[in-house]
């Protein structure tokens, strides 16, 4: 009953002084709005990256040679390449959860053919590669298991390479030269776009890994093994299983760390979005400062209003308000104003995020969590910055307050 009456008292005071209320809330409104827009921009960038990662392939795991440490000395990521074809073979044969496997041998090479001369990434892969990557052919055909076994000199071109070498013509059936070896183009891939890091996935030539290793370069190392499971739920189990298979294959003792890494797409996304996370934090920090300034604004106006309302406080005390009643009233006023300001700020933030998306073309995402945190934070600002003025009001002596002009 009594707390409710004090809420009523505070509510009336807020409603009766619309201008003062608005001025008090303004800082919070702008602060919360700014935080929301900033975080929406950051989260938008992050979700874009995540969708790009998902675009890398379906149910995909990536095995890379990882940092290995011997005697406590870390040799750094990929410093000692220990992924081998046998590893890929073992995963394929021994794993229960893995349905497709493709080693990837990567090198860069000058490609000559058609009208041009183009430097591109040359990936030596197995037949499963396209399915793992969820990639389709735009024209032509893909190489067969037989082609892989025999190391046939065939290639499938990414869209960018095809455009560079055979602009306007059909690339399929043409012959290109890789390191002076003639290779027949049997297919062209559909465009796949950029990786989260911004490199062009279509700027690539795919050939059987045997061909790349034996005929096109002396590059023997496997840079990645791509693996996919038939079922998304199997991914964690597959991750563990591959770990165990490779540890055994590499003869690692119990105490030795993995000299490879098995990452799923979420982990890849986290790695790729690490920088945007920093950016989001930075933006949020800047915006939080404006929220802080908003809080100081609340305190400022409330302090002024305590002085301005000295007479009112005196009247309330004279008719029986305790110091604590006045304290609670002022605190409630502060909290209501800051939460109300927060809510208006959230509304403005939504609008602002939409506007930013519209004007810049960035994607912006307002997460429910951001809204909750913003509201809780503004209530906290209200309590924190409302407390000092409220205590000042409560400590007044009724006579002095009444005599105040």
């Amino acid at each position, binding site marked *: 009953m*009594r707390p409710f009456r004090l809420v*009523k008292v505070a509510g009336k005071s807020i409603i009766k002084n619309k201008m003062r209320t608005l001025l008090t809330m303004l800082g919070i409104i702008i602060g919360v709005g700014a935080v929301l827009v900033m975080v929406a921009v950051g989260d938008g960038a992050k979700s874009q990256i995540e969708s790009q990662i998902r675009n890398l392939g379906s149910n995909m795991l990536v095995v890379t040679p990882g940092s290995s440490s011997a005697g406590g000395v870390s040799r750094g990521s990929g410093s000692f390449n220990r992924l081998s074809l046998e590893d890929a073979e073992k995963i394929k044969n021994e794993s229960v959860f893995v349905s497709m496997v493709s080693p990837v041998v990567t090198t860069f090479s000058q490609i000559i053919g058609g009208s041009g001369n183009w430097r591109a990434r040359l990936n030596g892969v197995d037949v499963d590669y396209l399915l793992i990557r969820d990639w389709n052919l735009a024209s032509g055909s893909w190489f067969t298991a037989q082609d892989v076994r025999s190391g046939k000199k065939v290639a499938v071109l990414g869209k960018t390479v095809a455009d560079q070498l055979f602009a306007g013509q059909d690339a399929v059936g043409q012959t290109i030269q890789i390191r002076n070896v003639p290779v027949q183009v049997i297919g062209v891939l559909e465009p796949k776009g950029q990786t989260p890091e911004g490199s062009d996935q279509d700027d690539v030539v795919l050939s059987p890994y045997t061909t790349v290793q034996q005929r096109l370069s002396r590059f023997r190392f496997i840079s990645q093994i791509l693996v996919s499971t038939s079922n998304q739920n199997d991914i964690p189990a597959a991750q563990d299983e591959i770990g165990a298979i490779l540890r055994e294959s590499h003869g690692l003792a119990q105490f030795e760390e993995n000299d490879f890494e098995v990452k799923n797409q979420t982990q890849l996304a986290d790695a790729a979005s690490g920088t945007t996370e920093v950016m989001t934090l930075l933006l949020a920090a800047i915006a939080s400062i404006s929220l802080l300034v908003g809080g100081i604004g609340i305190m400022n106006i409330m302090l002024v209003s305590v002085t301005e309302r000295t007479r009112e406080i005196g*009247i309330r005390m004279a*008719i*029986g308000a*305790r110091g604590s*009643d006045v304290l609670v009233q002022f605190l409630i006023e502060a909290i209501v104003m800051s939460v109300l300001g927060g809510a208006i700020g959230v509304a403005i933030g939504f609008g602002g995020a939409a506007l930013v998306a519209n004007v810049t073309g960035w994607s912006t995402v307002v997460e429910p969590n951001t809204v909750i945190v913003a509201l809780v934070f503004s209530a906290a600002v209200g309590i924190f910055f409302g407390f000092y003025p409220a205590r000042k009001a409560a400590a007044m002596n009724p006579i002095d307050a009444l005599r105040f002009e």
Partner: protein
Amino acid sequence: MDASAVIRTHGITKVYTMGATQVHALRGIDVDIQKGEMVAIMGASGSGKSTFMNILGGLDYPTAGTYELDGIQVSALSKNKLADVRNQKIGFVFQGFNLLARTTAVENVELPLLYDRLGRVKNPRQAAVRALERVGLGDRVDHLPNELSGGQQQRVAIARALVTEPAMLLADEPTGNLDSVTTVEVMTLFQELNDSGITILLVTHEHDVASYASRVIELRDGRVIRDEYQQRASAREDLERILAEREREELEEVNT
């Protein structure tokens, strides 16, 4: 000593210390006031009337002495308990009305009930409207203070003082800001309230106002120099006479 004493003070002193100088505002006041009395407190400016009223009203503590209100040792109470006494036992009326601005008459009047810790009144608004009707402002319930005349504002303040049904009404120069007719109007109201059993103490400079009280206490330099009972004049009769005179004057004006 009479058991029906509402107020009993003994040796009340008040010393204001301002730096090196000390002001002895009250120098030992012993006063008993019985239930149902209507007392006027008089005295020159600076004689200590307001200081005394503030102590009686629980707005301030005496420097020394005891004050018993309705059987409670007020001078020994904590700040919070004193606030509760102000809320439940005392109705205070100020010279400057002290209504909350931008707040309607009825909201001003119900305010003390919102601070009532006992929650004795279940429907504060209804009680506030009744208090306003009692002071003759039943038709001004939703008016703001700045839409009311001085006399009406003071009546709102009196309604606010009455709404908690206190043991007594304290009024520090309640008519100080009012013209002569309104003064008599407000005094009529005080007399009616007193007739209905409410104990009233009021501070005034004017002998006319004091004549409506049944007892006059005069202070000088913080001491009681006179404490007399008297036959009180009727404010209602005076009001009727003044109004009749006015009517006659107006008629004469029309005739000439």
